[in-house]
C-alpha cells in the first residue's frame, strides 16, 4: 500500500509540475470565421445521364431525416474518432492513465507469483490477442482512405460509368450554392 501511495504521489507531483510549465503557454487565437459543422457521414454515387437537362442531387427520405436531425443537434454528430482527435487534452489524459494502467499492471504481474494469477494473466493476454487480431481484421476490411475511391472519377465521367465514394455532409455558414468537393490528388 505504502509504495503504491508514494509512487502515485510522485506521479501526481510530476503532473502538477507539467501543469505549471504549460500554464505559461499562450492560448491559441479563436478563429474569426465560424467553422463548418459536420452533420452526417454517408455514401455518394456520381452518375452521368445524357438525357437529363439539369444536374440533380437526389437524397433519400431517411438520409434527409438524418441530416436534419444532425443539423438540429448543436455541434453535429461527431464520431468517436472525431471526439477523441478534437480534444487533445482529453486524449493526453487518457494516454497518461493508460500508461499508469500498463505500468501498475506490470508491477502487479511481476509481484504476483501465484498460479491462479498466472492463469488470469494468460487469460487476459489471450483475450487481448484475440481483440488485437480482430481489430486488425476489421481495420483491414475497412478499405483504403476515402480519396482513393475518387481517383477514377475523371475517367469514369468520360466513360459514363458511375463512381461511388464516401461523403461527409457539412453545414457551412452563409447562403451560397451547394458545393461538392471531390478529393482528387495530382498523380
Amino acid at each position, binding site marked *: 500500500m505504502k509504495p*503504491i501511495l508514494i509512487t502515485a504521489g510522485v506521479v501526481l507531483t510530476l503532473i502538477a509540475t507539467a501543469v505549471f510549465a504549460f500554464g505559461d503557454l499562450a492560448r491559441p487565437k479563436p478563429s474569426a470565421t465560424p467553422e463548418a459543422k459536420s452533420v452526417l457521414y454517408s455514401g455518394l454515387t456520381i452518375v452521368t445521364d445524357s438525357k437529363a437537362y439539369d444536374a440533380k442531387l437526389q437524397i433519400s427520405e431517411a438520409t434527409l431525416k438524418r441530416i436534419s436531425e*444532425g443539423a438540429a443537434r448543436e455541434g453535429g454528430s461527431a464520431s468517436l474518432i472525431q471526439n477523441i482527435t478534437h*480534444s487533445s487534452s*482529453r486524449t493526453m489524459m*487518457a494516454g497518461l*492513465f493508460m500508461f499508469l*494502467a500498463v505500468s*501498475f*499492471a506490470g508491477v*502487479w504481474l511481476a509481484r504476483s507469483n501465484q498460479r491462479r494469477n498466472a492463469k488470469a494473466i494468460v487469460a487476459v493476454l489471450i483475450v487481448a490477442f484475440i481483440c488485437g487480431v480482430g481489430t486488425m481484421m476489421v481495420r483491414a476490411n475497412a478499405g483504403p482512405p476515402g480519396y482513393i475511391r475518387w481517383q477514377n472519377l475523371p475517367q469514369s465521367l468520360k466513360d459514363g460509368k458511375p463512381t461511388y465514394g464516401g461523403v461527409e455532409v457539412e453545414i457551412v455558414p452563409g447562403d451560397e450554392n451547394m458545393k461538392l468537393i471531390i478529393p482528387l490528388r495530382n498523380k
Partner: protein
Amino acid sequence: MPANRTQDACAPNMERAENISVVGWSGARSQISARTFAAIMLASALLSAAFASWIPLQASIITVFLFAGPHNWFELRYFMMRLPVRFGRSRNFFIVAFGGIFALTLAYISLPALYYATLWSGENWTTAMAWWNTALLLWIGMLVLMRGRQTSRRDWSWVVPVAFALCAVNWLRPDLFSLAIVYIHPLVALWFLDRHLRRAKPEWLATYRRCLVLLPLLLAGMLWQLSRTASLADDNGLFWRITQHAGAELLPNVSSHMLVSTHVFLEMLHYGVWIVALPLIGATGAIWKVNSIPVANHGRGFPKLIGGILIFSLFVVTVLWLGFSMNYTATRDIYFTVAIAHVLAEAPFLLRMI
C-alpha cells in the same frame, strides 16, 4: 444482543464490529419459501419489462414519483443495519468512504448549481465530468485496496491497473462513461441481494441465481423488440429530460423508446430489490423498530440519533412527494442530482459484504 454486551467488555474493537454484522445477518426472518420468493421476483421482473416497454415515459414518471424516495429510505435503513458501533480496524476505511461520499456528492451538486447560478458557463462541462468520474474511480479503487488489506487471504492490488484503465476509457468519452453509470447502478442492487442471500439465506441462493440468468435474456428480448421502434416524442420539457437521462442525445442513432424502456426497467428492478425483496427476506429488520438496528440497540449505540435520522428521512420522503406533486420536472432534476449520494454510498457497503 445481551450476549453481545457481555463480549463487549473484553473483546477487541474489530471483533465487536464483526459480531454486530453477524447479529444483522442471522436476524433475518421471513415466512415465505424460496419458490414463492422466486415466483414473486419473476412476476415482478416480467411486469416491469412489460410496463417499461409499453408505456416507458408514463412508467418512468410513476415509478420515480412513487418509489424514488421510499427506496432511498429503505437503503438508508439497510446501511444502518450494516454499520458497526465502533469502527475499530475499519476506521480508515470508513473515513475514506464517508469523506469520499461527502466530497464527491458536493462536487456533483456544485456543477449544475454553479451553472444555474450563472457563475459558470458550463464551457468545460465534459472535462469537469471526466475529472469527477476519475475521482470516483480512484476513490472506489482506494476502498477496494483498503478492504483487500483487511484479510490476508485477498490480494486485490489488481484493482490499481483496472482503475487506471477505466480512467483512460473515461477520458476518451466522459459523457458515455457517465451514461454507463446510469445503467449499471440499478444492477448493483441485485449484487447486494446476492451477497445478502449468501449469508442470510444460502439455501435460496441457487434459486436466485437461476432467476438472475433470465435477466440478460429479458433484456435481450426487450432490446430486440424495441430497437426498431420509432423514437419517443420528447416534445415537452419533462419527456425531453427523461429521454436525455436515458442517453437519447448521446446515442442519436438508437431508438429513444428502447433507451427509456431499458432504463425504466432497470430502475424498477432496483426499486423492487430495495423496497420488496430485501425487506421480504428480513434484511432491513422490523421496519418501524429502531431497536432492530444494531448500532441503535447496542449498549454503546446511538438510539436517539438513529431514530432521529430515520424520522427526518421520512419527512424528506414526504417533502419529495409534495415536490413531485407541485413541480414534477424540477423536483425530478433536483432528486437525480442529490441522489448521487446513495449511488456512492452503495460502494463501501457492498465492499464490506464481499
